[in-house]
């Protein structure tokens, strides 16, 4: 395989793609859906409320606050704190005077300013207000007079719906970029017979497929990352990138298979509609925790959606997901052989006219 040829095809795809409506839809549609979910459910993957603190002395409040389930950031100046809250980099900001702790302990009820971001959700405001009061009670030596026991209602409903939607949203972005884009461009090239024109140059059919695959792969990873970032997911960057790469690899093989097997766009859309249900099934099943996981495991896309869900939502390590991801890679390799076979068949059919 001539890598320069693969590169030339990839560059051609990158230059051509934005000129067609399909590409715009592939980019805009998943991001639009992500924004919509973001708007409906708040932060897609529900990060902890963020409290900014500027401490003019050396208050114990900072360390006590860090023991609560909130993100704490210390700012050097009051101006920096106010700016962070105004920009919604923090949901609330706490300004502590130099002698705050001693005055609290002496029962002097010192003034305390809590700045609230106008963009903070009511839930975050409430959580942060309660957390601050709780911390100060502890500082004053007046622990809470009662112990609240939290009980989750409903079996398996521990993961909020917005988190359970994450695999579906990410898969949509990855699948559109990695399956539909290469699949549709191959079919278009067959319909327009530009593929025939390429195949009487030094270019080989495998290089055409690889070039289209490279573009779909890169776009799928970028789209998956963008979707997660819009959803507020951060951290575990390497693990997320590895899973997205495996997802893109598997989806690319599916897209290339589709392009090589289908001869016209009408058939492509029909297969996309029917096959899409199967491909998306694991993501849909993850919405319903009561459904046994083995059903989702019957479908190849589970082997990147499952690990992604565990890593992003439950904070699992990459190593703990190694088995499922290895199965995902093995499936991708097997699909790669299928792509090679279908490509040869496509070339024969093109020659036969």
């Amino acid at each position, binding site marked *: 395989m001539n890598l320069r040829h693969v590169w030339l095809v990839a560059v051609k795809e990158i230059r051509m793609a934005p000129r067609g409506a399909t590409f715009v839809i592939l980019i805009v549609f998943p991001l639009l859906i992500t924004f919509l979910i973001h708007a409906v459910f708040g932060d897609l993957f529900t990060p902890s409320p963020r409290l900014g603190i500027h401490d003019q002395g050396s208050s114990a409040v900072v360390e006590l606050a860090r023991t609560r389930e909130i993100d704490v950031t210390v700012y050097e100046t009051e101006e920096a704190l106010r700016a962070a809250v105004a920009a919604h980099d923090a949901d609330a900001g706490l300004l502590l005077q130099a002698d705050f702790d001693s005055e609290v302990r002496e029962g002097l009820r010192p003034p305390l300013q809590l700045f609230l971001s106008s963009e903070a959700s009511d839930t975050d405001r409430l959580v942060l207000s309660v957390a601050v009061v709780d911390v100060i009670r502890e500082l004053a030596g007046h622990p809470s007079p009662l112990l609240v026991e939290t009980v989750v209602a409903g079996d398996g409903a521990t993961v909020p719906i917005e988190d359970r939607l994450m695999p579906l949203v990410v898969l949509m972005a990855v699948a559109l970029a990695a399956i539909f884009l290469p699949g549709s461009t191959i079919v278009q090239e067959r319909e327009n017979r530009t593929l025939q024109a390429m195949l*009487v140059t*030094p270019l*080989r059919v495998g290089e055409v497929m690889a070039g289209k695959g490279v573009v779909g792969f890169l776009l799928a990873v970028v789209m998956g990352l963008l979707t997660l970032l819009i959803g507020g997911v951060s951290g575990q960057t390497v693990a997320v990138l590895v899973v997205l790469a495996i997802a893109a690899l598997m989806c690319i093989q599916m897209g290339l298979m589709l392009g090589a097997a289908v001869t016209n766009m009408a058939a492509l859309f029909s297969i996309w509609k029917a096959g899409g249900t199967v491909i998306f099934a694991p993501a849909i099943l993850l919405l319903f925790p009561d459904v046994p996981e083995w059903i989702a495991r019957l479908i190849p896309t589970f082997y990147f959606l499952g690990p992604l869900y565990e890593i992003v939502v439950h904070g699992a390590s990459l190593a703990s997901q190694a088995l499922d991801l290895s199965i995902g890679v093995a499936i991708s390799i097997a699909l790669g052989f299928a792509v090679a076979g279908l490509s040869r068949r496509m070339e024969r059919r093109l020659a036969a006219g």
Partner: protein
Amino acid sequence: MGMSAIEVDGVRYSYGRTLAVDGVTFSVSPGEIVGFLGPNGAGKSTTVKILTGMLAPDDGSVRMLGHENGGNRVELHRRIGVCFEEKNLYAEMTGRENLQFFSRLFGLRRYDTTAALRRVGLAERGDDRVKRYSKGMRQRLMVARALVNTPDVIFLDEPTDGLDPVSARAIRGLIREEAERGAAVFLTTHDMNEADQLSDRVAFINEGRIVAMDAPENLKIEHGRRSVRVRLRVNNGAAGDKPGGVDEQVYDLGTQEAGELLKRVADDPRLLTIHTEEASLEDIFIKLTGRGLA
């Protein structure tokens, strides 16, 4: 035969049970233009696909530019140019981008797209997207694309299809230039007039077989009928004559009767015109195959 750009010997090819090419044998020399003529389904496209290495023959051998039966396809394709009948250009690219992309596939880093566009009369529209081109402009770009790599063998399928007479003449001139440069040109067409004007030799293909292959003039001499058409004014004032009436007679050339007629009419005051006529390639094709080209 050793100097031929294309040597085809007894090639057969079947699509399932349908025999598409049946023992075809011919050769094309560098600098020669060969017209491959036949109706739809005669085997023209299949022959081209075999020559370009897209199909492997079931039987027989093809030797093109030193490559036996396709051989190293990458190296073979580096030296051929193909102009398809379908206008398979990238419609969303400009004309210049189409040529640039294909020139890069051939590894040409310093390809002069402006000169190439100028050569086919598209210099002014080179930066327009192909989807805005007329049918004739697309055809000219197709020819330019086939010549991107200065090929040693050029396959042209209906190269002047959709062109106005002036553009068609320009493209024919360009094809002759390529042949003068030394390229072997393999022209497949329905257009007998085009084949007659361009080709050094023509091959008639019917039902997968070459039924005749020679220079157009030789085919006309061997298979055609040469004649002389004489037109005489018949309105000489006699009662019943129509005003402007003309009598027209056709005689085969080379016969004693024709010679005597020519002597007789030469001094006839009623003589309007004398034209010699020869059979067209289509007439010969019909004579040889019993069918037309449509």
